[in-house]
Each structure stands twice: as structure tokens, then as C-alpha cells.
């Protein structure tokens, strides 16, 4: 079935094909085992986990001196496939990648803001996700069955420590920059706090030191929908043929609203109705926004695991950069050595500009040089993914300017 409602979104968005000079071309994800029985990985919760496989992708070439590495950190539903076209999509059972390039394709590529002719770009899928890195859907060696909700709780700190292990594996001692948006921005912060001497630049987009209480509330409702779906089955739904698809779709639809903004939705959909609306006793998708959200929910179910959603949203809830200062963000910021740029978007209500400004001020109070930009946009939280022109200009400028006199 074709979704009419996709038309307002998908109309003129063109992607550069794999043979385009601005595309990183065909990509192949790589998987590396970073923890095994001999070298397990101790999580912040105290439990150890092994084995751990991590899926990652790289673009561009590492310079002989190894000083051009840029680590990109993905958000809740993201993966390691940042740019280009996945040559393995069909074989790996990821058909959605046949239709679209990587999630930040507009930003990463030859001649783009994060120029792969200059930077060696790497991105890895986070622990607990479902895109090649070990997560709740992986087989628990103790039982021979998927972990389900017996998977240990993961944190942003765990993700960053695992990323550092990946950097060790790849021979990268120092990163030119870490860049992330949303919960990726929190990973970038965590990098700057945990490994102050391993990075020169830190870019935090549409993020803050912690999630707002409103964000906690939205996440809770999303989890509630999943946990109360009868097909959730206590998290052991992997052998049942169907999982908590309805719950996951509801969680995604709700979350998707928080990624948009009222003016943005008004511009995109207005109160336009679907042709031939009705059905389902009058409660079918009547307005365009309804079928758009329904489509978002359905296509998400196709590509995401409900347990991963629960684990990652919990990590998002729990993160607080101020932990490094025993609750005092300014004290925490004293740890940071990297140049930092924080970018918020005026219509973002998931990580509102106020929070980004608070983080920037904390850095400033700690005596750190900081750049904070509030970009005007009506796209909402999604702006960090969508507004590639505005974001790109800033990111490129920041990456390429060492600062006068340096």
C-alpha cells in the first residue's frame, strides 16, 4: 500500500546517488568484537557484558598522522550508516536502506560540511541498539536465547566508553572532533567530560546537559505504550512472530510529534484532509497529519526493535552531564579541554534553546571558551537533521577554524 500522506514530506527531497561526486558512494558496515569472555565490558550499572559486537562505518581516509578523525554520534533511532548508500542493505535484511542514503547524508560527503576529502569520519551504533551492535535482540550466551529485557541497562557513559574502545581498536588516540545531535549531543558532551584529552573539538546540536522533565514525561508515555502492548510478552517476543508493533508505533508517533513544532506542522500539513477520508467507523485517518504519523509509526516498526527503544530511551532519561561535578554543571565543565560549540534551534521543544544556553553558560562560567548559536528554524528538534544548510555552515566553519593564532 502506498502512503498518500508521504507526499508533503517526500516531494522535492533529492538524494545524491552513489555515483555522485558529492556522495561517499556505496558503503559497507563493519563489525568488530570489542568485548569477549577474556576481555568483558563492565557497565556503569556494575554488570559485565560479553560478547559485544559493534557495527561501525568510516568514510574518507585517515591521515598518516591520524589527526583528522571526526566521530559522529547518532541519536535514539539512528545507526552507524551516516552517509552514502548501503551496498549490503538487501543481504542484511535492511530494505529501508535501499530507498534512502544514510541519516546525515546532507552533511557528510566530499565537498559537504563534514568534508570526507579532509576528515576521516567514523560512526558506530550504540550498545543496546538494533543495528549490528549487541543489544536486547542479540543472543545471550548464557541461555542461547535473545536477551530481551534481561539485557543490562545501558547508559550514555557506557556508549562513550565503548566508542573509546573502538577508537583504541582503530588506533585513534586523539579525535579532531566529536559531533552529535539530540542524544548524540549528550554523547559528545560525555566525550568531552570523560576523555578531555582525547578530543580537540566538540559539537553539541539540539541537546542539553540533561533531558527536561517534559522530555521524561514523553519518554514514559512511549515506554508505557510498548510495555502494555499484549504482544510485548515481558520482552520475550522474538520467537512469537510478532512483537509489540502497536505499542512501538504509538511510542514513535508520540516521539515524532516532539521532534516537530507547532508552526512547522502547520506549514507542512495545515488542517488539510485526506481525499476520501473516513473509514474505520469515521475514526480513520481524516487529516494529512494523521496519515503522516501513522506512516511514521508503521515504517519505524519495520526497522526498529521495541526493547532497544526502551533501553535507549532510558539512557536518554538518565543522562546528566552535571554528574561529573557531583550535580554542579559548572564544576563538571571544568573538566573540559575541547573547544565546544553548542547549537540550538529556536522551535525545538524537546531540547529547548534555554537548556542549550544553560550548558553554554556553564562552560563559560567554568572559564572555557564556548560558542553558542541559536539557529532560527520552525522545524523543531528535527532541525539538526533537516536544516543541513544552516547547520552545515556552522559545523564546517567550526571544524575548519582552529581559532586565530592557533
Amino acid at each position, binding site marked *: 500500500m502506498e502512503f498518500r500522506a508521504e507526499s508533503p514530506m517526500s516531494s522535492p527531497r533529492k538524494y545524491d546517488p552513489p555515483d555522485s561526486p558529492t556522495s561517499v558512494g556505496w558503503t559497507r558496515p563493519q563489525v568488530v568484537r570489542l568485548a569477549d569472555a577474556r576481555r568483558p565490558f563492565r557497565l556503569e550499572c556494575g554488570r559485565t557484558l560479553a560478547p559485544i559486537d559493534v557495527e561501525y562505518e568510516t568514510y574518507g581516509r585517515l591521515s598518516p598522522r591520524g589527526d583528522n578523525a571526526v566521530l559522529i554520534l547518532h541519536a535514539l533511532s539512528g545507526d552507524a550508516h551516516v552517509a552514502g548508500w548501503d551496498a549490503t542493505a538487501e543481504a542484511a535484511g535492511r530494505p529501508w536502506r535501499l530507498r534512502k542514503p544514510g541519516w546525515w547524508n546532507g552533511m557528510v560527503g566530499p565537498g559537504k560540511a563534514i568534508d570526507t576529502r579532509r576528515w576521516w569520519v567514523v560512526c558506530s551504533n550504540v550498545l543496546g541498539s538494533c543495528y549490528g551492535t549487541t543489544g536486547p535482540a542479540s543472543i545471550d550466551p548464557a541461555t542461547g536465547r535473545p536477551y530481551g529485557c534481561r539485557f543490562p541497562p545501558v547508559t550514555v557513559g557506557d556508549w562513550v566508553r565503548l566508542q573509546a574502545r573502538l577508537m583504541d581498536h582503530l588506533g585513534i588516540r586523539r579525535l579532531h572532533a566529536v559531533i552529535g545531535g539530540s542524544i548524540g549531543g549528550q554523547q559528545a558532551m560525555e566525550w568531552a567530560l570523560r576523555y578531555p584529552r582525547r578530543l580537540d573539538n566538540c559539537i553539541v546540536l539540539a541537546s542539553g546537559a540533561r533531558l527536561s522533565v517534559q522530555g521524561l514525561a514523553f519518554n514514559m508515555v512511549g515506554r508505557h505504550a510498548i510495555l502494555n502492548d499484549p504482544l510485548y510478552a515481558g520482552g520475550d517476543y522474538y520467537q512469537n512472530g510478532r512483537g509489540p508493533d502497536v505499542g512501538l508505533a504509538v511510542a514513535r508517533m508520540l516521539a515524532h510529534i516532539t521532534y516537530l513544532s507547532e508552526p512547522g506542522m502547520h506549514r507542512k500539513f495545515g488542517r488539510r484532509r485526506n481525499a476520501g477520508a473516513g473509514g474505520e467507523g469515521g475514526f480513520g485517518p481524516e487529516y494529512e497529519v494523521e496519515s503522516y504519523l501513522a506512516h511514521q509509526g508503521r515504517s519505524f516498526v519495520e526497522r526498529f526493535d521495541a526493547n532497544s527503544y526502551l533501553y535507549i530511551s532510558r539512557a536518554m532519561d538518565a543522562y546528566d552531564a552535571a554528574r561529573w561535578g557531583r550535580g554542579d554543571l559548572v564544576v563538571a565543565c571544568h573538566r573540559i579541554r575541547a573547544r565546544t560549540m553548542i547549537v540550538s534551534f529556536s522551535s525545538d521543544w524537546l531540547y529547548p534553546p534555554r537548556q542549550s*544556553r544553560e550548558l553554554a553558560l556553564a562552560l563559560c562560567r567554568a572559564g572555557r*571558551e564556548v560558542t553558542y548559536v541559536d539557529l532560527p528554524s520552525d522545524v523543531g528538534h528535527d532541525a539538526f537533521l533537516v536544516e543541513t544548510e544552516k547547520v552545515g555552515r556552522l559545523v564546517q*566553519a567550526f571544524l575548519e577554524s*582552529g581559532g586565530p593564532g*592557533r
Partner: protein
Amino acid sequence: MSRAPRRPASLARPRGQVGCPACAEVEEILRRLDPALRVEGADLMARYRRALRKVSARAPAERWQDRLIVRKIRPGASVLDLGCGAGDLLAELMCRRRVRAQGIELDPEEVVRCVERGVPVLQGDLDHGLQGFPDRSFDYVVLEETLQTLHRPLTVLSEMLRVGREGIVSFPNFAWWKVRLSLMIEGRMPETERLPYRWYDTPNIHLFTLRDFLDWAERERVRILGGYAYESGRVRPLREDDNLDAEEALLFLRR
């Protein structure tokens, strides 16, 4: 350049306490004007108007204060520039004085230009104050050509003297004799090289004079550590009686 140009004898003003200084200034303007009017008559006003039209088409000249500020600031200091624009001053300070620089700027385009040249900048509105900045967290806080554009100039002034050990402020002096002339003779809001705006598009919303500022400083027990005057393209140390002669003033302050 910092030496005071010698004042022509014909323009010498009586020193000492001679009644109301404002009245003395008006007399002085009339004295300056009088011979010129006698000699050139209506032609003077025409030339004056032509000159004004020419300069008002231009953007304000490069910030003359930057040179003096760079000379003044010691290497390795920390500098907060309020309304830093594209970061010209901070970029120079970072290069030549290795300062810890931080700018604050409202205009998004200027902010991007700061990022492009690697100047750390916080996008923000000065009228919201400097909340969050601890007392004396910068060696210098600079406010160049911005005070008269603020909605709450006094808040920003006292904030800059709280956050910085030393304040550096520059502003156009609305008591400069040409400005007064424009008002007095033409009856129009002044347009000069440094104030190239019409009344309706000027960003300058709080107009004040050097004397107004010095009054404020005295009232608030703010010490003036030194200063410079800009007058028709020349820069010299500020004199006590510069309310009439200074087109713009640059002052170093401390609370």
C-alpha cells in the same frame, strides 16, 4: 597619534569656572560658526549638507578603538566583548595578545562570521544582562559602540563592571559640536560619518553625551582610569572638557 593636536588660538575657550559650562559651549559654537558664516555665507550650509549626504551613504568607519584596546590589554588576559560583531577585536586579541576571548552577539549572521574565524561567541541579547557570569570572571569587558543601542544601558553597564575587573566602553558623543550644529542650525537629527542613520532607522535609541556619562560615573562611584577621544578622524587622549570636541569617546572604567 595619541598626542593632542594643538588647538588653534581662535578656538581657545576660556578655562576655569565661568558659570554654566553648557552656556559656555553654546557661545563657543556661535563663535566658531560666526566667522565662517560671515565669509562663506549660504555656501557653507550647502557644502555641509553635501558632505553629510556623502558620509551617510557609507557604513561607519572601522572601529578606531580596536587599536587602542589591543595596545592596552596585556597578554594572556581574559576578555569578554559585548556586541562583538564579526569578532574583529577578539580575533586580533587572540592573535596578538593570546587572550582568552569570549564574544556575545545577537545578530545570527555576525555570529556565523565569528565561528568562521574561530572566535568563541555566545549568541545572546545583552539587554537580558549577563546573568550566569560570575563576578570578576574576566579581566576586561568591552562594550564598543553598543551602549546607545541598548534598551537597558545602565543594567548592562553595571553588569559589565561586575563581571569584569575593568570595563572598556566607547560611544558616540551627542554633544559633539557638529551634532549640536545639525540640531541647532538645521533643526534636524544629526547624520555624521560615525552616525550615518536617519531618525527612523537608527539603532541608537538611548542618546547621551560624554558629560551625561561622566555624571553617571561620578554618581555610581565608577572610576575613569583613562580615555581617548576621536575627533574628525584623529585620536588623542581625552581631555576634561571634551564634551564639545569629542566625536566619540573611549573610556577605561573600574568600579
